[in-house]
């Protein structure tokens, strides 16, 4: 029950994007296509979990040692994993890598990733740190997908997914594709979409909290 609640907290009441407003930059910048945002979510999730795991091991061994040294270690580990993610993505998914550009290496200083890693390095229990990281990553991925779907539908009139069999991977929403609102794909569209969706999430969360026990 307790393990489950850590993950649910990351998805809902402590959602990194819509409640805590952490790690927003990639979510706003590369959420113009659904497929790109799915790759980005995967990269964030992997870097987040890996750096939290290794930072909590550092925290385990260096308990009571200098806080700055532990902070530096968690920063170094996060940077290493971000570099790994960048290189791996470039090798296995070159298209997605080109579309994501700067934002995968920038995960090294994403405030969500470094915040979680630092908390883990301070000596949070390994299991709890991992579950919290997993919850935060999943919560971020969910918001990311919603924002990307809204922006792509409005801005291009399509939804891009993986091609499977005879399905080309692109859903076309005919009335929107004929006259898309291009502004949704620009920077301003990202801010506005995130703002309105965050307001919606705040409303839903409050209603959920109000009706609950």
């Amino acid at each position, binding site marked *: 029950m307790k393990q489950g609640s850590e993950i649910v907290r990351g998805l809902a009441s402590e959602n990194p994007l819509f409640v805590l407003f952490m790690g927003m930059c990639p979510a*706003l910048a590369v959420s113009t296509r659904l497929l790109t945002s799915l790759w980005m979510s995967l990269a964030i999730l992997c870097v987040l979990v890996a750096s939290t795991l290794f930072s909590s091991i550092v925290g385990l061994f260096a308990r009571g040692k200098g806080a700055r040294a532990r902070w530096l270690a968690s920063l170094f580990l996060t*940077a290493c994993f971000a570099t790994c993610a960048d290189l791996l993505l470039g090798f296995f998914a070159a298209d997605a890598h080109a579309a994501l550009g700067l934002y995968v*290496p*920038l995960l090294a200083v994403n405030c969500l990733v470094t915040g979680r890693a630092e908390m883990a390095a301070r000596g949070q229990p390994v299991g709890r740190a991992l579950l919290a990281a997993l919850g935060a990553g999943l919560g971020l991925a969910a918001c990311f997908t919603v924002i990307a779907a809204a922006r792509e539908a409005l801005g291009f009139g399509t939804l891009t997914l993986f091609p499977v069999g005879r399905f080309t991977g692109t859903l076309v929403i005919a009335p929107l594709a004929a006259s898309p609102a291009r502004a949704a794909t620009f920077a301003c569209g990202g801010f506005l979409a995130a703002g309105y969706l965050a307001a919606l999430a705040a409303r839903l969360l409050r209603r959920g909290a109000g009706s609950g026990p």
Partner: protein
Amino acid sequence: MSWFGLILTFALIDNVVLVQMLGVCPCIGAPRRMGTAVGIGIATAVMMSLASLAAWAIRTQVLAPLGLEYMQIVAYVLAMAGLAWMFEAAAGRLAPGLLRATGFSASGVAVNCAVLGVVLLGARGGASPGGGLGPLQSLVAGLSAGCGVLLVLVLLSAIRARLDLEWVPRALHGLPLSLISAGLLALAFMAFDRALLARLASLLGLPS
């Protein structure tokens, strides 16, 4: 790219926060007090210019000769952490009041995607095709990008202080409203583009 073009590109046309969408978190949570916003903006600008210069040195003097360019993120992050400590120590001596007022912390500035983003953009040469920027160009690019951040921080802080006096729907309270303000500001910043740069340069008789 000319100096004029470099400054305008990094400060306005490719504004770090509103166009590149880097370092959004500190700006969205912009403090209501103008003095605090200015303090954070200046600290960011100084960090950006120093980090750009340091990154130029690391890239051309250490990583490129050794063929270790793929390790650039790790090297830059460690260099930025060191710079942030130095900066914190210096600020503690020179202006301890500022340090307390802004809630400034080394980790807060070093671990800032805006700073690393500017450094990486400089490493890629920004918009110019001839590879990375030179040392002085890196310094100026970092400083102008930082001034762009300062401008956005001040604008958003002023907007936020104004909105406190207005009635807003409850769901929009706080950060959703800041995000929407930033979106409208980004819409306004779309007016700064290459065409404007070319026009300004020709008006002033400068190479663009």
